[in-house]
């Protein structure tokens, strides 16, 4: 699913036009992006936490050539799913029809 499906679900609940809802949804993700960029984590209870982590410089290897390379310090974003979300996903009532195998 994409943003369109989210917009549809919200549209059914509030009395705004789809265009207005689309704008609000865009704003929600913009606020989250700005926060993650400038500051730090976002905790959404019942869903999960988005956490920004600082990684130090480290030595790495180009897997293709085997060359030693320096990996620069960087900030990365990770998502830690909440217990509630994990439990919901593993609940049995959902048909296991998907082919999203690793």
């Amino acid at each position, binding site marked *: *699913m*994409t*943003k369109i*499906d*989210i917009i549809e*679900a*919200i549209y059914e*609940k*509030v009395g705004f036009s789809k265009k207005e*809802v689309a*704008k*609000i*949804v865009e*704003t*929600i*993700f913009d*606020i*989250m*992006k700005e*926060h*993650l*960029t*400038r*500051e730090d*984590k*976002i*905790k*959404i*209870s*019942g*869903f*999960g936490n*988005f956490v*920004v982590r*600082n*990684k*130090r*410089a480290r030595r790495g290897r180009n897997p293709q050539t085997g060359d030693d390379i320096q990996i620069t*310090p*960087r*900030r*990365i*974003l*990770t*998502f830690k*799913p909440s217990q509630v*979300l*994990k439990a*919901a*996903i*593993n*609940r049995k009532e*959902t048909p*296991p*029809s*998907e082919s*999203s*195998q*690793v």
Partner: protein
Amino acid sequence: MNKADLITRVSERTNVTQKVAKVIVDTLFNKMKESLQKGERIEIRGFGSFVVRNYGGYKGRNPKTGEVVDVPPKKLPFFKVGKELKELVNTVKPQEG
């Protein structure tokens, strides 16, 4: 920032009431949760994507007692950061190496 803070900021920036902003934010995350429950992939342009990965069961050990326990197969949500956001987050460099 937690969900309540997010709701407040959404309300401030879009001129909708806190109450409506709460309905919208809750619906957004509920919809995403439902989608993952169905095993669907979620793609949010400019933000990232979520997929459900299946993990096979295995025999594990209780580290305290050494007892062999059966770890059943499970599914876990996995978030892949979008290219744009990945670069944005990394524009602010860590203070020290």
